[in-house]
């Protein structure tokens, strides 16, 4: 205690600098973590956390046996998996392609174009997607040239997940490639010279020098990505989905919003949310361990 007082007296200005930010984290990050207690209660806003009845695992048992939740959970996992499978490699490939484009004005123009969608909100980008896919939008006009009947893409269960995955790739891949481009720029140029003397072609250079050179960057980004498997962008889905495609497009976040905030089943929705955060924490921990085991070096 006395030591703490001495530390504060010596560096009081530094602690004062820290104070507002610390209050923010306690109030808006740690207080909600305490608030997850309501997941184990029948919470009523009038009674508050201290007055509400404690019901244990009731809500967890209920959502695990609920068909709607199981659909939502499956959608979340599937969409996330598709995004990971198809979306994760795209920025790496894009960075390799941009790196091989040696004409400077061309590279700069391409980069500018690829980065721009990242700076659009999902309302704007989703709006463009909705317009392009509407009954008389660009895509259907194109299909009409080949004599194909118009397709209601956003109302179709068969296409909705693909639309989520593809629109996410188009919007974010360019921006995500920046970090790989930076990593590629950090690869020792003498390695390329040595490879060229040994007669290696472009593809061999990429496979044996560039890719191993950016391996740790890829691993770190993959860990971060895995930790958010159950959080796949509520802003995107909320903009694009509609009741016609709930069956394939409703994800945990949108479900929590509808059940929790529009139907005000606070405790039930909080239980679903707690399940989501906990799985996220476990996943990021496990993938970090695996990365360390493989010798790639983890996040911590």
């Amino acid at each position: 205690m006395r030591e703490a007082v001495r530390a504060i007296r010596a560096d009081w200005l530094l602690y004062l600098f820290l104070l507002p930010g610390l209050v923010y984290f306690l109030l808006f990050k740690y207080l909600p973590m305490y608030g997850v207690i309501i997941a184990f209660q029948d919470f009523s806003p009038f009674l508050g956390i201290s007055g509400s009845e404690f019901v244990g695992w009731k809500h967890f048992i209920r959502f695990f046996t609920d068909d709607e939740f199981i659909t939502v959970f499956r959608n979340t996992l599937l969409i996330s998996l598709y995004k990971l499978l198809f979306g994760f490699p795209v920025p790496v490939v894009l960075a390799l392609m941009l790196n091989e484009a040696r004409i400077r004005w061309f590279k700069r123009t391409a980069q500018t174009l690829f980065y721009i969608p990242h700076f659009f909100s999902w309302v704007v980008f989703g709006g463009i997607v909705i317009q392009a896919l509407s009954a008389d939008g660009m895509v259907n006009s194109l299909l009409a040239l080949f004599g194909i009947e118009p397709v209601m893409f956003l109302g179709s269960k068969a296409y909705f997940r693909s639309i989520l995955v593809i629109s996410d790739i188009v919007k974010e891949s360019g921006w995500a490639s920046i970090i790989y481009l930076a990593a590629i720029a950090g690869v020792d140029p003498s390695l390329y010279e040595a490879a060229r003397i040994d007669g290696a072609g472009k593809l061999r250079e990429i496979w044996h020098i560039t890719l191993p050179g950016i391996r740790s960057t890829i691993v770190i980004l993959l860990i971060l990505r895995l930790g958010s498997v159950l959080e796949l962008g509520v802003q995107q889905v909320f903009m694009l989905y509609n009741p016609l495609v709930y069956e394939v497009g409703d994800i945990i976040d949108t479900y929590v919003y509808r059940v929790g905030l529009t139907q005000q089943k606070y405790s039930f929705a909080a239980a679903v949310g707690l399940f989501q955060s906990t799985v996220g924490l476990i996943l990021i921990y496990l993938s970090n361990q695996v990365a360390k085991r493989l010798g790639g070096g983890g996040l911590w």
Partner: protein
Amino acid sequence: MSRCTWSERLGISFNYAALTLLGMVTLFPLLHVVAQSLSSQDAIISNRVSVYPVGFQLEAYKKLLQDDAFYRASGIAIARTVVGVLVNMTLTCLMAYSLSRRTLKGRSLVMNLIIFTMLFNGGMIPTFLVLKELRLINTFWSLILPQAVSAFNLVLLKNFFHSIPDSIEESACIDGAGHGTILFRLFLPLSLPAIATLTLFYAVMHWNAYFDAVMYINDSKLIPLQVYLRNIIALDDSGIELTDNLGLFLVSPESLKAATIVASVLPMLVLYPFLQRYFVKGVMLGAVKG
């Protein structure tokens, strides 16, 4: 180039062709939206609009600029971005500076507390209830305070401050400078690219966010531009009269949607070329090991 084999040259050409094609895929929808916003109702209905305006007219923009709700929503968005970024940058700079001082006791405890918030969170409902308890629901501050510091940006700036040589701080100390002087007169000017990048990140976040406003705000006078835009696009609810007194469309609803989209990204597109060189540098900051 002369050492390139035939197959390599083919590969390089293919690469340029593929990048050009991808660029087109990004560019075309944008041009299409701009074209639609400037085209006549007839041209849109008969599907003659591709990437340039047909039957050029500014009616959609005129309608938009006559709508009070558009001005109000833009005002909220601008206020939110300006106030939000000020709060963000003040708290982030002060905190990052303190946490980058190696002598500070309790530093690693605070760092761990902050990093943990990146791995685990209480979730949407408990956060909402905290805001409700603090009487922030349906206020302007519900768009500012819950996003006051980004843990990720904080770590980024802290690492950047770490990379500033200790000798600079030491010599300033000898000259009698306190922490306030060191931060504001030395560290901030030395970290200009980092500061510019974080400002951009925060500004983009505030300008583009809409889901928090959907959750926390139901007073139509307080909705920001993105929610206004969403109501027009997704819910087809603009409140703008598009027909004349005989019920004929003067402006296509598609045209109005497109015009609103263009209006909402305009500030971003204007600032973009100036900021591009900063953020490319700034993203590399993330690669600095902490």
